[in-house]
């Protein structure tokens, strides 16, 4: 089904906002302003944008350590996100979670996660709630190729399959689990084929193409909403930067990086949009400028935000104790 131009515009807008956010985080991290670790999403924007455009605000997503893009695509406010990365009291998680645990439950974003593979059962849980309560909400689990070797992947896909949970398992195969190539760590050429073992559909998607991701996600989400159970999507994509910022990335070759840069999801989409007349160059430029301004504002907000108070250490452990 052909997309309307408004949806196309919004897909580009989401990708652009994620890219702008990540490039800025990279810069701020290099400048020593961000504590801890950051894992950047640049290069993979088409996946978060394409999948989340198929979701409703009431649907849930679960992310992983590379979670900024998923947050933005699900509607989490970038000012709060940036403040969280800066460790400030105004952050999405009051500065207690940071990049690896950023979450906004009210937006259906159930958290980035510092443990590889830990999101699968939690995503099943959100789907389980929807099923038990009889709502038509769905739950999306975003994960990397590396986590498909964790037991939680196999346990959770099986559980979702036998209970027909409304869960969409979205694998972002970016070629590397940390510094280990997927071809070394996985015994099958396509991770999507692992779906066969659990009796659910597995689809391979060009993860650099936001339209393709959006289309595949639309089918998987519709299937989940209809009570027909989970789908495994393997989005073949690439991360432009290291596993974490500071990673020397000697495992990548220049040629490989260039090959993917040539297929940059934002640039390819932009070219397509201009050529087909979906969105004018002026409109695309305006989206770029608006995203840049938004991220500039987010950094200003974060930098001017107060540090958490020491007594905040003790709150939010329990509801009551």
């Amino acid at each position, binding site marked *: 089904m052909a997309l309307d131009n408004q949806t196309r515009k919004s897909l580009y807008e989401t990708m652009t906002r994620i890219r702008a956010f990540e490039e800025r985080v990279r810069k701020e991290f290099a400048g020593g302003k961000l504590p801890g670790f950051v894992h950047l999403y640049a290069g993979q924007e088409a996946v978060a944008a394409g999948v989340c455009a198929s979701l409703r605000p009431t649907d849930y997503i679960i992310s992983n350590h590379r979670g900024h893009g998923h947050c933005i695509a699900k509607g989490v406010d970038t000012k709060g996100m940036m403040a969280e990365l800066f460790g400030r009291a105004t952050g999405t998680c009051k500065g207690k979670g940071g990049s690896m*645990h950023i979450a906004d439950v009210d937006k259906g974003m*159930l958290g980035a996660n*510092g*443990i590889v593979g830990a999101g699968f059962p*939690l995503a099943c849980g959100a789907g389980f*709630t929807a099923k038990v*309560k009889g709502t038509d909400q769905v739950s999306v689990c975003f994960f990397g190729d590396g986590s498909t070797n964790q*037991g939680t992947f196999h346990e959770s896909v099986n559980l979702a399959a036998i209970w027909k949970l409304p869960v969409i398992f979205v694998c972002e195969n970016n070629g590397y689990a940390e510094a280990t190539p997927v071809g070394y760590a996985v015994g099958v050429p396509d991770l999507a084929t692992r779906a066969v073992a659990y009796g659910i559909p597995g689809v391979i998607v060009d993860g650099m193409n936001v339209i393709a991701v959006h289309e595949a996600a639309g089918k998987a989400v519709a299937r989940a909403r209809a009570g027909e159970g989970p789908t495994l999507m393997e989005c073949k994509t690439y991360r432009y930067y290291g596993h974490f910022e500071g990673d020397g990335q000697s495992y990548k070759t220049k040629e490989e990086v260039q090959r993917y840069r040539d297929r940059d999801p934002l640039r390819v989409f932009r070219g397509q949009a201009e050529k087909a007349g979906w969105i004018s160059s002026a409109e695309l430029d305006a989206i770029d400028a608006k995203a840049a301004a938004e991220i500039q504002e987010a950094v200003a907000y974060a930098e001017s935000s107060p540090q958490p108070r020491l007594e905040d250490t003790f709150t939010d452990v329990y509801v009551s104790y």
Partner: protein
Amino acid sequence: MATPNVSMAKAINDAICQEMRRDPTVILLGEDVAGGAGLTHLKGEDAWGGPLGVTKGIGAEFGPGRVWDTPISESAFVGTAIGAAATGLRPIVELMFVDFLGVCFDQIYNQGAKMRYMFGGRARVPLVIRTMIGGGLGAAAQHSGCLYSLFTHFPGLKTVVPSTPYDAKGLLISSIRDDDLVIFFEHKAMYGMTGAVPDEPYTVPLGKAEVKRQGSDATAVGIAKTAHTCLEAAELLEKEGISLEVIDLRSLSPMDEETILTSVAKTQRFVAVDEANPRCGMAADLAALVATKAFDRLVAPIRMVTAPHTPVPFSPVLEQFYLPSAEKVVEAVRSIVKK
């Protein structure tokens, strides 16, 4: 109305049923909590009702929409329960034996326990994990542990260990109604223990220990079965003219420090009794509490009566030797009370 001679297992079953009737978001899940899932010849009856029959009949009453048999897949279903709790249900999930913790610990301590904190207080995980503890049944090293101290270590978890049918029902109802993640430990050698249990729902507050017996010469704190071990020891010691105060801890986290310290201030002697291994365990934790907060009230060294630093042996002879006994508690108390 209270019914006399209700077993601990029945008291737990009652608590679950009554809470499930009260609140449609209370969901039961675990391995064979009903049993025989999907088999039509059972006509809706459960095949097992839990491995030891504790949840018998619940599946038949509430049906498969409220009672979910899971595959043997603890990470998946415990994590599912955590995710479900964070999104609007109040699940009760059964981790059959606490020794199975090793196959799903990440979901409990890294996910469920930390979610609220990591999210800046914007999530709650109203979940109860029921799990069996304890030796005495010849179940050997991988089905007999008392691993509650591991959970008690973690901020974000509450840990509860009942020692009577009355407390089991009241504490479980409190746990189900609590908005935090509660691990509820059931000593499997105590399921058959009977006592008077009110028919109506009631709560026993979390975080409150109970003085089971007043005494003046020493204070003994026990957990689950060892609360009874302490009471037996108190009977034996009374014949020697030694008066032992016995406290049942009931909640390990939060812990009722006040009741313990008040008692120690009175008796000036302290014995911690625990069926678990001694290192970094509850007995050591209790000893540290008394040493750091009541040292100036003590007139004798603190004693610990625990299992030894070994796995639980299979042989009934060895297992009996392994478990704390009233005699061992008597000996420990005698060593610090000179009469």
